[in-house]
């Protein structure tokens, strides 16, 4: 009789465009997406077609880097019950030409300032929750670079 093995816990990304390598955390997680071979537009995650020009056949997978800068932000004070607030919710323009929604750390949320525009940021990942099946859920966040 075959012996039942315990279900192995997985490490899952919080969003599909974040890829967690098998050897994580020894190997870093990264953002990935698709680039259109016809018009060069880049997108986060998998796509059936290009959202800019409609091309369906010339899309290829690309890996995005982990650095960029703050385009704009808001500081969210009133939020979902159970979440720690305030937090800086920003739009990050990655150097590789796509934008990401992200929490940014290393800034004082009580003192939002226009000097934050263009600040260089770097991505890091961490386990932020366990899902219903007990799997670790990993999210990407950004920290201001000194």
């Amino acid at each position, binding site marked *: 009789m075959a012996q039942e093995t315990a279900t192995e816990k997985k490490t899952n990304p919080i969003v599909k465009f974040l890829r967690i390598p098998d050897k994580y955390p020894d190997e870093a997680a990264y953002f990935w997406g698709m680039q259109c071979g016809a018009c060069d537009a880049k997108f986060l995650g998998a796509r059936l077609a290009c959202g800019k020009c409609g091309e369906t056949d010339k899309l290829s997978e690309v890996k995005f880097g982990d650095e960029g800068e703050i*385009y704009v932000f808001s500081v969210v004070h009133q*939020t979902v019950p159970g979440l720690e607030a305030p937090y800086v919710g*920003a*739009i990050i323009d990655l150097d590789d030409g796509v934008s990401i*929604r992200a*929490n940014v750390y290393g800034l004082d949320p009580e003192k939002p300032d226009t000097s934050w525009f263009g600040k260089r940021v770097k991505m890091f990942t961490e386990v932020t929750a366990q899902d219903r099946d007990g799997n670790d859920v990993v999210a990407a966040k950004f920290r201001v670079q000194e």
Partner: protein
Amino acid sequence: MRDVAVVGVHMLKFGRYPDKDVVQLASETTIAALKDAGCSINDIELVASGNLYQSNAMIGQRVMKEIGATGIPVINVANACATGSTAFREAYYSVASGAYDTALAVGSEQMGKMGLLGAGGGGDRAYSTEGIMGTGLMPGVFGQAGVEHMRKYGTTQEQIAKIAVKNHEHGVLNPNAQYRKETPLEDVLNARVIAWPNTLYMCCPTGDGASAAVLMSAEKAKKYTSKPVWVAASILTSDPYQERNPTMFDINTVTRNAAKQAYDTAGIGPEDLDMVELHDCFATAELLHYENLGLCADGEAGKLIDDKETYNGGKIPVNVSGGLLSKGHPLGATGVANITEIVWHLREEAGDRQVKGAKTGLAHVIGLGSACTINVLKR
């Protein structure tokens, strides 16, 4: 396309109606709009019903069962915050196309005190990105949109706060407004922050409400009214490709595209408008739409409110109803209600808040995701 007139309108004061259901709200306003038009449900050939949170609940047909189930085509419409105005457009094209001589649009919503929009969401909470990977809550999204204007033009939080001061001041004069209380600048700036730069008074409330409009062909309208209000343009756009969208929603391009089509169709420019009811779900949004609608040049929106040009009596009165900030924003009702507001002004029936001599008005709504409607009305 044929000329189409708005012959009857009504809105139920926005607020909270815990003792009624949404079909009652929609039915009450529909009956009142029909009376305003001097006709009955038996004269209506098509109904477009806008409701967002109960879009699968056949609200339109349930209204008909309540007020007169005549068996005519009924369309239930959902298009985010542009739900009501998209229903209006369905009614408009039904008549403009020549397929029907009369149509009715009704928008309704019952939100109660549902709290922050976008804060719900099913599925496994472990996978919710809110506050983990940025924000998708409406106050944060519209906060970022306003901050983009700060980045481009050096606009200040105080300038944006002045919009909330204006709209609450306007709302005091509107008996249909959910809130009729002035909020001086210090109060707006010192109110608790919801999502910077928007404080509490710079965010629209949730609420319940309904509004309806009766549309007719020119020939038919003549039999019912001596004060027809004409639909000079009824435009709907979706957001075109833009580099950061949908990571960052683009409420600007979708509005600019709609505005251009609306002005071209109506054969007018922004300088010909006497009043505008635009989608001020947050004070930051109104600021952006001054420029998106061409009410001022790019980068001049802060100056426009500094100079009080968008007050009633100013160069171009904006949201004399109090706007969403003061009048309220029951999602599905909003798009029909701001058309109703303009119709009242063009008929000189707007009471204490009447825009003097108003002949042409523009109603703008944006539904995030995104849909933009612009309806231009003329007397």
